[in-house]
């Protein structure tokens, strides 16, 4: 059976499973639609949270990012996982005790203000839509690479599947499909990693393998070898830090706070039966995530070694088959600058502009010709970082079924995140905007219908973004995390831990944090991209790390404004006292 046939088989089987779960878990009330009736077992919820949070990018791109950034890429590992500590210790138990349905609902009720509620809805929509565009695109890319269907068809199929289980099953359907999706994606990620680790070190545990000794008899450790290879090719050593300390610290902080402020992750802790289950569930979620996230740096190391060893100084005619396969998809390009027919892999860009633009013609060695100018420097090869996970099975010479697994795993990662985002978008609109603000008289059935309609509209918008991706998809990660860090997280945190934080304080804080962060990101990415370098940055902090300062600004403004205005009313003080005590949580209920 060919790799493509296996891809069809595994993706098809996983889709059948998701649809089966959707039919089994149809819902009939808003409580089930928003929070799965509040009866999800904490371990299952942890698994669902892990799938919810690990996106197409986690599955496909992070290993590649780290393979090329080396030690500097670690900020993403620490930032994205460390946020769960904040979530478990500072937010999840209290929000579960609060016991309603959505994040804007907490902000609106705690700050006794529909303005605060609407500001929170706007933050939530912005964060969620920037995030979801990338997921739909991810589905489309997997379909086009592995199943060889048109990218737009891929997006449409992905939309149809998510539509089916998110609209029918709401949070209940999403939760149980996410559990299945976690199992698919973790299996798909670990199998090639284990093979790679055995191949290089003989150790079947990748987390230990990449700190082990090479099995080629040289006596070198894997990391020594990689440092040696990268420096020989003109890169800086793999294990060496290049990013400034302050920027590294700011990025880690912004990503941690941002992770804790992501609404589709927070809302998952509304679905467990008890307050203690919320923190237990957060622990399980992080443990399940770390199964993948501790494997990622190992995959990065092996992939980088494989790539450097098999590419450099190899005559193109003798290059392994995967080089040509991925060249055909446009993720690898070779420009024979010195016309010796041999691939030279060195530090620096190969092409100008960086991204390859292929012509239809083939060169004398059979390579695809490019219309790019050659960039200065000896490097002749362009490698897209995303290739690191997708091409791994081929690079390592693994059986065809492993390639099919990767396709199913990547689709699972993208769909689970997309569904979680769709749910928070639809509940923010039907519950916070309609029920709690504009049409308070709406009944449960009417609200459920609105939630489903909102999910349909959100899917269509997400699909549109997937087919017509904005040019700045790469920067949207900075947007989503920066905004979550600077807007929602401080408002929720102070809502729990400060009894003095009040309505004007919270609104002023959210707006200050948000506009500062957005302004900084927009300025350096769109208004003056030529100034986007350390010498112009505020305190040397890059746009992706600026959310850390935005969060501090939000907290400072909230506290100062709250201090000079009237304290919150007695009913709100009682609400705060109540959410601080775990006993008597009950099930998530209607207002």
């Amino acid at each position, binding site marked *: 059976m060919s790799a493509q046939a296996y891809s069809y088989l595994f993706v098809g089987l996983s889709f059948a499973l998701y649809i089966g779960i959707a039919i089994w878990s149809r819902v009939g009330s808003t409580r089930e639609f928003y929070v799965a009736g509040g009866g999800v077992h904490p371990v299952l919820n942890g698994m669902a949270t892990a799938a919810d949070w690990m996106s197409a990018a986690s599955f496909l791109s992070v290993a590649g990012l780290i393979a090329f950034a080396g030690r500097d890429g670690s900020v993403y590992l*620490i930032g994205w996982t460390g946020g769960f*500590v904040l979530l478990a210790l500072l937010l999840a138990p209290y929000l579960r005790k609060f016991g309603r349905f959505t994040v804007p609902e907490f902000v609106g009720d705690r700050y006794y203000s529909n303005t605060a509620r609407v500001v929170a809805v706007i933050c939530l929509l912005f964060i969620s839509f920037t995030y979801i565009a990338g997921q739909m695109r991810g589905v489309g890319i997997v379909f086009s690479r592995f199943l060889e269907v048109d990218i737009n068809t891929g997006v449409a199929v992905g939309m149809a599947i998510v539509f089916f289980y998110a609209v029918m099953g709401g949070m209940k359907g999403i939760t149980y499909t996410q559990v299945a999706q976690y199992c698919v994606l973790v299996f798909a990620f670990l199998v090639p990693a284990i093979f790679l680790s055995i191949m290089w070190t003989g150790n079947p545990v990748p987390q230990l393998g990449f*700190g082990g000794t090479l099995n080629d008899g040289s006596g070198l450790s894997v990391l020594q070898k990689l440092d040696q290879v990268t420096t020989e090719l003109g890169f800086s050593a793999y294990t060496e830090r290049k990013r400034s300390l302050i920027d590294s610290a700011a990025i880690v902080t912004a990503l941690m706070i941002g992770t804790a402020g992501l609404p589709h992750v927070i809302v998952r802790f509304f679905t467990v039966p008890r307050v203690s289950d919320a*923190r237990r569930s957060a622990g399980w979620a992080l443990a399940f995530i770390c199964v993948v996230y*501790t494997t990622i*740096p190992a995959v990065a190391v092996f992939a980088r070694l494989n790539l450097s060893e098999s590419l450099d100084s190899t005559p193109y005619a003798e290059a392994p088959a995967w080089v040509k396969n991925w060249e055909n998809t446009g993720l690898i390009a070779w420009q024979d600058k010195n016309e010796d027919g041999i691939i030279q892999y060195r530090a620096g860009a190969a092409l100008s502009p960086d991204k390859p633009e292929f012509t239809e013609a083939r060169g004398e060695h059979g390579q695809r010709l490019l219309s790019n100018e050659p960039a200065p420097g000896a490097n002749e090869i362009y490698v897209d970082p995303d290739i690191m996970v997708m091409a791994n099975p081929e690079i390592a010479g693994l059986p065809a079924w492993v390639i099919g697994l990767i396709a199913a795993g990547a689709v699972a990662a993208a769909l689970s995140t997309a569904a979680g985002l769709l749910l928070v978008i639809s509940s923010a609109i039907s519950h916070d905007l309609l029920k709690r603000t504009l049409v308070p008289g709406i009944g449960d059935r009417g609200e459920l219908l609105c939630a489903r309609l909102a999910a349909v509209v959100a899917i269509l918008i997400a699909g549109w973004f997937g087919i017509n991706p904005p040019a700045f998809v790469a920067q949207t990660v900075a947007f989503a995390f920066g905004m979550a860090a600077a807007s929602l997280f401080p408002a929720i945190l102070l809502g729990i831990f400060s009894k003095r934080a009040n309505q004007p304080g919270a609104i002023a804080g959210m707006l200050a944090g948000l506009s500062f962060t957005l302004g900084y990101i927009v300025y350096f990415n769109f208004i003056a991209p030529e100034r986007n370098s350390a010498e112009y940055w505020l305190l040397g902090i890059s746009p992706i790390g600026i959310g850390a300062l935005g969060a501090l600004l939000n907290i400072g403004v909230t506290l100062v404004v709250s201090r000079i205005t009237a304290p919150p009313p007695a009913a709100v003080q009682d609400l705060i006292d109540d959410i601080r005590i775990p006993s008597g949580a009950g*099930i998530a209920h209607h207002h």
Partner: protein
Amino acid sequence: MSTDPSNPGPDSVYHHDLAENLPRHSHHDAEVLAEQRARSYWRANLRVLAILLGVWVFVALGCGVLLGDWLDQFRLGGFPLGFWFTQQGAMLIFVALIAIYHRWMTHIERAHGVDDDPDDAKVTAESAR
């Protein structure tokens, strides 16, 4: 106990050390007790948070970023120690921190009588229906 054991006043229902310094005010006893319990629970909670978040900052920003270069002089198997922290160790410690938090808080909640054991949850779930 502040009351004289030989003459337990009819007003007093105090049977908890925390209530030692409270005024004897029979119809408010239960309420005052609950409030007192909530306050001491909250103080204990903040102490746990301060300790665990202190470790968290030390691991994430200390070992993960600021001390990384210094830690590299030590080795853990084939890993420079600072590198291991940033790519493995910090994540494992984060998981451990949440597990410790969960156990510690369960213990504190029981001690202060504010826990949410399954029987209570069932009762509240039914009464809410």
